[in-house]
């Protein structure tokens, strides 16, 4: 199972990972349209910043995933290729997954009242955050 890792030492806090994640999960996948004319999805990547330190954090797609084990609806599930996704049709926004994720990698989508997280860009060989990180701070290995 390949995962996204971050090299904190070279993360420059530009947040392009978030921007490309939003575009990838938008309706049109056109960066200008996605930002200007469409409802903006929450990015699945979360950038933490404090002073000069910054890093991007994505779901680890744990082997022993507490979010999947704890999900009260079955929305949080592991696909056959190992990635964990949240089926927002089934999610009711109880935030149990947020309570158990030891990385704090799941977000509350307050508009849609569902959990939002990284899906490793279904259909892409390399997640777009990794592909577009200008400083190669993200790796997919």
């Amino acid at each position, binding site marked *: 199972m390949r995962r996204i890792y971050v090299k904190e030492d070279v993360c420059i806090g530009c947040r392009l990972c978030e921007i490309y994640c939003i575009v990838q999960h938008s309706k049109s996948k056109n960066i200008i349209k996605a930002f200007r004319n469409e409802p903006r999805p929450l990015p699945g990547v979360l950038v933490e910043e404090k002073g000069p330190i910054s890093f991007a954090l994505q779901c680890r797609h744990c082997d022993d995933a507490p979010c999947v084990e704890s999900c009260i609806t079955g929305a949080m599930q592991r696909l056959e290729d190992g990635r964990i996704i949240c089926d927002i049709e089934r999610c009711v926004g109880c935030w149990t997954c947020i309570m158990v994720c030891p990385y704090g990698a799941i977000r509350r989508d307050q508009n849609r009242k569902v959990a939002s997280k990284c899906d490793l860009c279904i259909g892409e060989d390399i997640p777009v955050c990794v592909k*577009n990180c200008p400083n190669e701070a993200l790796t997919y290995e």
Partner: protein
Amino acid sequence: MLSLCKGEFSVERDDDRCIRCLVCVRQCPSDVHKYDEEEDRIYSDESECVGCQRCATLCPTDAITIRYKPMEMKENANWKTYHLTNIYKQAETGGILLTGMGNDKPYPIYWDHILLNASQVTNPSIDPLREPMELRTYLGRKPDLLDIEDGDELILKTEISPQLKLELPVLFSAMSYGSISLNAVKSLERAATIAGTYYNTGEGGLHKDLHKYGKNTIVQCASGRFGVSPDYLNAGAAVEIKIGQGAKPGIGGHLPGEKVLEEISETRMIVEGTDALSPAPHHDIYSIEDLRQLIFALKETIAYEKPVGVKIAAVHNSAAISSGMARAGADFIALDGVRGGTGAAPLVTRDNVGIPIELALASIDQRLREEGIRNNASLIIAGGIRSSSDIIKAIALGADAVYIGTAALVALGCHLCQKCYTGKCAWGIATQDPYLTKRLNPEIGTRRLVNLLNAWSNEMKELIGGMGINAIESLRGNRLQLRGVGLTDTEYKILGILPAGE
């Protein structure tokens, strides 16, 4: 006081493309871009823009164009905008004007007046894709004569002085940790290791993390003697005594205290937060004899196992001084021309002191040959080498190898904004700000530098192959391969080359 100096750049934002992602806001170290939440708009304070192009490069929608747009002064033949704005600045500050990078004044660039030869019909050219080509270069004192014992097997009896072995005749110039970031130093070090050449510590000492990679390091001993210790001297592959620098001949260096952070203070062996002042002269060198003493003191320390060289700025009497250095025991001489770069120098010095490296090189090579001591020391030249053709021309003029500084930094992302001295390098190169230094990922930096060296190696092989030469050694000092265009008789004479057509 109202400043009469306006910004030099205009920031053009295509509002149809701008998505308010704020990458520009986050990336500008000069706080040019500011987001106004109320209006959902980004305002740009152009007066602070230095034209580094960081925002324009990272903007995901290409919404930003930074245009050079200096104030249009009423210039005349004597009074240029350059002079007017400098006077305004000095009238406002009362201080010496500082600048970064190399001399940008329109003094003649002789490389651009020299053309290379190529083989036609009578001496076939060589295709580097099909035949082996050699760029390998050895730097160090070469013996006057080789004493070989004849017999079943030839045995070299002459003891050869220590040599530096380079896989291509290019080294990375002295750039101290302090003037550039540790990530930049690491990039240079790793690239030098991979490419089989050397980088130079400058006068910043050798960071503890890099001691173990000393085999591709030239350690410098400058007038401030920062970080110099027997361990340091022995950690490198060679030692270079720095007398002068092309960007600021005759003056010392100054790393302001605010840049002397913990790791720099440790590396330089000075108190944290204190200014690192390199005196203009070495206070123990007032003559060639004094220099000889230092050279041999250093050689003693490193047990004569590695070459010791001397670096000077190219000035009017460089040829005579070089003769002295070669006689004083320098295994290599590094010459830094008027266009050599710097992290910080007084503008007036950078723009007016020194001589072009091409002329200095030609005259020194000539002088050492005439005196029969050209083999005493190798010649490394520096100061404004921009391309593989500059290198080939330098070698044909008599250089053994070249140092590249600015070119290396440009490969790392430098956009030549000349604001190194502010410490706010947006590309993470000439800065110690931890927020900015991260921007230079040493893995990427290494890759870019190695790519540049590989590209130049391939081009150099094409050029010498075209001349019918298969080893760079055969081109060294081969001025017949050069012809000049648009020069004066005196310049031809100094350069030792013929005009094109002759």
